């Protein structure tokens, strides 16, 4: 029966221009934006391109009447803090919406608190409420491993996990779940919950940024705020990044954002201290070497 079908379909002269589809659906636009706005993350971008290609091909197969199956779209993003997991999840929601795999394309971002209740019988309604909110879009569970606490067998997290698994399986057309967290802990989480591992098709790893990439990110952030570095400040900042990376609690792009916030603070302070009459645009928007070098990191202290 199926083989016969295939033969009749093979006779069909209908053709689909995949590239035109790529542009028509607006997917190309999202992918380009991803390339332009996110620095580094090459493996992530490649994976997303591959996924988009697969989904487009599936849609084309559907159109021509070939057997197709809605692919499992649940994903896991693992990587260190500040490597852009949430940002990519947002883009992913948009992408899946444009490809027609989710109906609304909104992102509902939750953590353990939003899913797990405080007393018996509280968890199930709470989790369901969140799942309902996410239907037609993407549910992003940050630091998913906190759902599972093996040291406490009465923990309600297990209940949330069960409901989650059930909905992930039964309502596959209605929502896509993305789990995110640090790599090592995600691995233990998956090991102790094999149900999750098998229901998630795409495991995407987010690598750490190199110092140069972090500098570029910093420049971009400043640009968005109408600030800029002087040449020497830029050099100092690169040194800062190298020093900061070696310290504990380094959170990639988030640490850069915090460092820049503090640099702006010192910049403002410096302008007051100098007190050399009225200041112009130039002064108000330029961070100098001094603003960076004042950081505790250069004297062996720790920044957050």
């Amino acid at each position, binding site marked *: 029966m199926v083989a016969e079908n295939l033969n009749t379909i093979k006779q069909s002269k209908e053709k689909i221009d995949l590239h035109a589809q790529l542009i028509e659906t607006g997917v190309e636009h999202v992918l380009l934006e991803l390339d332009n706005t996110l620095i580094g993350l090459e493996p992530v971008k490649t994976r997303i391109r591959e996924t988009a290609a697969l989904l487009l091909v599936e849609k084309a197969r559907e159109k021509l009447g070939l057997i197709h199956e809605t692919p499992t779209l649940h994903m896991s993003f693992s990587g260190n803090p500040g490597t852009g997991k949430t940002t990519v999840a947002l883009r992913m929601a948009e992408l899946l919406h444009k490809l027609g795999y989710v109906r609304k394309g909104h992102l509902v971002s939750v953590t353990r608190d939003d899913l797990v209740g405080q007393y018996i019988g509280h968890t199930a309604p709470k989790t369901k409420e969140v799942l*309902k*909110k996410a*239907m037609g879009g993407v549910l992003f569970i940050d630091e998913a491993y906190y759902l599972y606490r093996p040291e406490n067998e009465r923990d309600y997290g297990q209940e949330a996990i069960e409901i989650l698994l059930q909905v992930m399986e039964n*309502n596959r057309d209605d929502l896509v779940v993305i789990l995110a967290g640090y790599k090592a802990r995600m691995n233990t989480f998956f090991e102790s919950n094999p149900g999750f591992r098998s229901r998630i098709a795409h495991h995407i790893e987010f690598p750490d940024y190199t110092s140069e990439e972090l500098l570029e990110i910093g420049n971009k952030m400043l640009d968005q705020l109408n600030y800029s570095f002087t040449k020497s400040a830029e050099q100092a900042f690169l040194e800062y990044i190298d020093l900061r990376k070696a310290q504990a609690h380094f959170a990639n792009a988030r640490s850069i954002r915090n460092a820049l916030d503090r640099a702006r603070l010192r910049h403002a302070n410096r302008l007051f201290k100098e007190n050399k009459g009225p200041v112009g645009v130039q002064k108000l928007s330029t961070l100098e070497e001094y603003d960076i070098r004042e950081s505790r990191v250069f004297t062996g202290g720790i920044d957050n």
Partner: protein
Amino acid sequence: MKLRQGAFSFLPDLDDSQIHTQVQYCIDQGWAVSVEYTDDPHPRNTYWEMWGHPMFDNPDAAAVVFELNECRKQFGDYYIRIIAFDSTHGWESIKLSFIVNRPKEEPGFHVTREEIKGRSMRYSINSYATKNPEGKRY
């Protein structure tokens, strides 16, 4: 006797995807959709039992269909309806209401005629189903 109450009641029963489409329309209008059930089919029975809260902040109708099916699991032999409430100032009322689940057998209504003074008649209707206490009707 098939109960004809609310919108679409003279049409064949809606299937889940048709319900989905109707609910999505309501949500897109900004109405809060909720699921209600009862086993008293009297037309003046305005307030049915609520199945959960009205869903104010769900952008997609899948959530409502999901809840409807949960409700069917427990009250498969009851009347279940979906109502959409418009909270716009000045409206603040139900904009759309339609039955999405009904008992397998609907025995219909008994008409009671009462003679009152001057040979006038007073009529009232009672569902045959409501002879039994609540929960044992269908």
